[in-house]
């Protein structure tokens, strides 16, 4: 019994990953991202050069060809015009191919990321899955991934190019005048120095933005799923207030992040102003004070430099812009990687794992204790053996730990102490595929997929034909029920199966488990919502079908216990009684006798 401390913490392990590290790990997850990167980079260089060259060529054509000192120079103009046309074509084509390649690699990489993250969510232990709300989990494989795409297409590569342009501009400046180059760099120093600070701020701010997005989707999904409760208790206003709150939080987190983005970006402009002023003032001062080390500075140098500054400023601004936008993408990326880095600690031994032979399974709980994370022990030192082929009923008060036993038995969780053995093998050493094949649990909370009954049943055995499904329904005594459905097996069950009645949902889940043909079947109140008559009929059918298998049935209806080979009574996390019904019921003052007495009393009249 525990609260799960601050939901989301487990999967937020990724939050501490540094930006570059995120990119590195991201690329490791999606190797497609760097495919053909050299070619794309080459195209990018051509496209960026083109963006500089085309205006210059056009300029030259105008100035020297048309407006030349000796009147229009037609042949020069034509020559340059053709040159310009070629340059435009080349630039456009390069730009087209570069962008499509970028789109292709990033979308491919992101699809891989999405799919891997999705898969990993399913590989996480049940308890870890439960630490995060569904809506927030969904945001990690949808919206968070989408954030990365913009950056990959319009960011990453251009940052490299901008850096290259800054380098080239610096070299050219140094060649012209190293003194003035220093002036420019000094003017930009505050920007470069503050960049780290802003990056940290932005990283934190966008981290909040992404988390708030998750929280917002969780706040929306919960009342949508529980719409009936919201409606019947008329708590729409309160629910809306909570959603509005989440929407507002997301908005203000985004605005905060935008503030940092904008301030960091506008600093670039101020630095540019400083650099211009500095170049002129210091240039003039150096040039007119004819110090021995600055004699080469002329008016021409200063003016050329003023132009060079713009070549420097452009890419710097572009780079700052990309860096700030990158933080948003990286925050999203981090959350997706955070899933992948959350350990799937129910490790599947995989190929090295043991394979259970077919046939009834015998079960042993070897001094098993269990506590939910951060909670008190729920099961205490359970030591229990179930011989193969037996039909065992587990009974006990609500909250005594029956479902916990079922979840350990089917390895949805591993015990805190002790071991669960199937056919003498620790479940941790059994290959998952074999385990899932041989052991099937029908959980207390049935879940159906928004599809037809046939598709849901087939989930138990993918290659089952409709006839096989019908036959297996008939075996369970459900043939009549199927026959009364107007659309039969093709009946749509609706979201979570909500277009069926609660009892019908359980019938489908049962049918699904039966079709899976397990050697050990664990039923956790699998027929609690089915009417007594049908339940008894199913019970009798199961009795017959369970020959040659082991079954563990949890039920509050004592009729199940009465007909089982053996009854295990759980009380406050301990097995307090076991034996056949007749024997246990005779032990006066026992837990079982008490439970049975209330049951009989209920059945009275």
């Amino acid at each position, binding site marked *: 019994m525990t609260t799960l401390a601050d939901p989301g913490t487990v999967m937020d392990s990724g939050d501490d990953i540094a930006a570059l590290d995120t990119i590195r790990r991201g690329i490791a997850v999606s190797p497609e991202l760097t495919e053909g990167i050299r070619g794309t980079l080459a195209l990018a260089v051509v496209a960026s050069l083109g963006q500089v060259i085309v205006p210059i060529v056009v300029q030259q054509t105008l100035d020297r060809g048309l407006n030349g000192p000796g009147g229009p120079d037609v042949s020069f103009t034509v020559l340059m015009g053709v040159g310009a046309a070629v340059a435009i074509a080349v630039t456009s084509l390069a730009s087209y191919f570069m962008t499509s390649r970028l789109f292709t690699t990033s979308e491919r990489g992101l699809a891989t990321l999405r799919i891997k993250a999705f898969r990993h969510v399913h590989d996480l232990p049940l308890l870890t899955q439960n630490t995060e709300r569904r809506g927030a989990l969904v945001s990690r494989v949808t*919206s968070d991934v989408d954030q990365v795409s913009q950056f990959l297409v319009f960011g990453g590569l251009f940052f490299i190019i901008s850096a290259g342009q800054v380098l080239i501009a610096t070299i050219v400046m140094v060649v012209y005048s190293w003194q003035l180059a220093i002036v420019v760099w000094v003017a930009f120093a505050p920007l470069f120095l503050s960049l780290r600070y802003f990056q940290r701020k932005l990283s934190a701010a966008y981290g909040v933005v992404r988390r708030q997005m998750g929280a917002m989707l969780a706040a929306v999904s919960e009342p949508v799923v529980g719409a009936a409760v919201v409606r019947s208790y008329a708590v729409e206003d309160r629910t809306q207030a909570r959603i509005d709150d989440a929407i507002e939080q997301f908005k203000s987190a985004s605005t905060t992040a935008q503030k940092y983005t904008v301030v960091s970006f506008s600093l670039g402009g101020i630095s540019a102003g400083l650099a211009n002023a500095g170049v002129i003032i210091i240039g003039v001062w150096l040039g007119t004070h004819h110090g021995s080390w600055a004699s080469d500075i002329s008016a021409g140098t200063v003016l050329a430099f003023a132009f060079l500054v713009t070549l420097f400023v452009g890419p710097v601004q572009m780079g700052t812009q990309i860096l700030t936008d990158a933080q948003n993408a990286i925050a999203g990326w981090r959350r997706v990687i955070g899933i992948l880095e959350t350990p799937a600690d129910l490790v599947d031994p995989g190929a090295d794992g043991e394979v259970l032979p077919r046939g009834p399974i015998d079960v042993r709980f070897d001094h098993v204790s269990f506590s939910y994370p951060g909670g008190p022990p729920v099961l205490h030192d359970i030591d229990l053996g179930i011989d193969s082929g037996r039909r065992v009923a587990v009974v006990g008060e609500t909250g005594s730990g029956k479902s916990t036993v079922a979840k350990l038995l089917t390895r949805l969780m591993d015990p805190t102490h002790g071991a669960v053995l199937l056919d003498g093998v620790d479940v941790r050493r059994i290959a998952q595929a074999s385990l899932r094949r041989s052991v099937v649990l029908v959980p207390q909370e049935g879940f159906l997929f928004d599809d037809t009954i046939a598709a849901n049943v087939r989930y138990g055995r993918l290659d089952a034909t409709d006839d096989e499904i019908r036959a297996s329904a008939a075996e369970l005594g459900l043939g009549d029920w199927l026959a009364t459905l107007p659309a039969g097996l093709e009946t749509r069950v609706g979201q979570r199966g909500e277009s069926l009645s609660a009892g019908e949902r359980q019938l489908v889940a049962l049918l699904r488990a039966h079709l899976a043909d397990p050697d050990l079947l664990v039923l956790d109140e699998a027929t609690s919502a089915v009417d007594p008559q049908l339940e008894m009929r199913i019970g009798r059918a199961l009795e017959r079908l369970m020959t040659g298998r082991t079954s563990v049935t949890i039920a509050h209806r004592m009729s199940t216990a009465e007909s089982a080979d053996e009854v295990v009574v759980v009380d406050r996390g301990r097995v307090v009684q076991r034996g056949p019904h007749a024997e246990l019921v005779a032990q006066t003052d026992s837990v079982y006798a008490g439970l049975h007495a209330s049951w009989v009393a209920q059945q009275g009249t």
Partner: protein
Amino acid sequence: MSESGATTRAATTLEGFRVIWVAIKREPWVFTLSTVGSLLFGALTVADAWVLGWSTQHVVLPAFDDGEVGAGMLVAVLALFLGVALLRAVGIVARRLGAGIMQYRMQAHSRRAVTRQYLSLPMEWHQRHPTGELLSNANSDVEAAWGPIAPLPMAVGTVAMMVIAVVQMFVADLVLAVVGLLVFPAVIVANLAYQRLASPLMTRAQELRAEVSEIAHESFDGAMVVKTLGREGEETDRFAAKARELRDVNIRAGRIRAAFDPTLAALPNVGVLVVLAVGVSRVLSGATVAGDVVTVAYLLTIVSFPIRSIGWLLGEFPRSVVGFRRVSRVIEATGEIPYGATPAPAGSRGVRLEVDHLAYSYVPGQRLLDDVEFTVEPGRTVAIVGATASGKSTLTALLARLVDPDRGRILVDGVDLRDLDRGQLAEVGALVPQTAFLFDDDVRGNVTLGAAVSDEQVWAALRAAQADGFVAALPHGLDTKLGERGTSLSGGQRQRISLARALVRRPRLLVLDDATSAVDPEVEARILAALREGQEGVDAGATLVVVAYRKATIALADEVVHLQDGRVVDRGTHAELLARSASYARLVNAYEHGEHPPTDPGERDPEGDDLMAGEVSR
């Protein structure tokens, strides 16, 4: 289907502007601020060039000529450059922050509107729209719809620049200006082609985003089933198929975008070349002077910047229009439950409940409930008994007005449920659903659901629901967070919290839909005792409708309504029904038969149970 028709229609540029207009009307001040910022930025970019020119003229050249320079001049240079830079920074801040704020505000407006609909649209609507899709509407579609706001101020700001340049072009040379302005129709054609090609892809992409979100939500919701059957691989395949389809559509859309952007960038340059070609011949024929050609060409290069920034705006349009349509479809969905104006009937004891010739069908033409009729006098208890799928839960849903009947009415103290004002029914009645639903909240929040209720009352309700014991043992008592859907509780514990939630309201009509199915017999007996006899926190006077199978529960009722195939086949006390209805007796006595099978004890063939044939409803 008008719905799908609306989405397949190609997105037009006009529609894109209409979406923008919605945003401008909604946030005029932020829009003005960011546009002014944009204009300021534009003006100061020009000023920057002017300052450089001024400095050259008045400082650099004289200084190098004279070898002398006044300190005042240098200060002026510094002041001018810095002043312009600072003002420009202000412009940037106003433009970008304004655009951001406008965008986030519009997103918030849409999200509020959309989620408001989620809470007010009827249950039928919810059943047709998967949760994952609704998440996508509130997230990705809203984001898409307001995407163009980011480049908007820049585009609007540069329009001024463009107008000035175009006027100057006409002043310089009419013919050349006309030639140069051919760039504009070319831009429009390029844009039309882009919209035409991109919008179906964007439509599909947004649909796929919704589907991806749907699969993810459903699959994570059913994670336990996926795990227990070891179907992780199949689920991944299902998700991967959609994710890959989305990838392919995005790549195709990306290619189109990749062609559109450089086209827009190239058009003005191509225009310059055309002007040049025409210009040269005109200069040679003496129709114009070279200077004018240069001016027009130069102005055309200036125009390329606004065109590019308008291009960014237009580039966002197809996705925006598609997102906007998807959002509007939710906002404009009708079928909101109409409420009357009548307040809840006053009184402190149980209500009189009349169910009058009720008929209901989920699927048109397949009547589920037909002519259901019974009356419960104040403070009495009626048990609804029927086989699986006979329509019991549907009846309780009608009693809670989760759905409205096709025919007939339900009256509480003589008032039709449909005449009650919004929220009034909840004042009178409470439904404990068959499947408990808990919120990701603490115990208190789950019981009160925000109602002003003291902790003592919460404890009293928990006591009556036999939940006080385990709640007291929770690490933080009432403040213990229960996790989404109450995952940290056992099934029976969840059910009892759900029961306490109803009891704490002291309802005058309490509807229990098999609400103790996961509770063990002992605990159930105590709950029933509390309901029957009344105790601190529970009124014995409430009118009670219970759906139940257990005989003890049924025996508590003053009357039993036996439902079969959606019809009331018999009514009376439990004893009467047992005596006169064989099918009723078979249903409720099944457990005893189980102990002593009616046929040969060794007989386990279900076909032997022919007396049960047709018992399952429908």
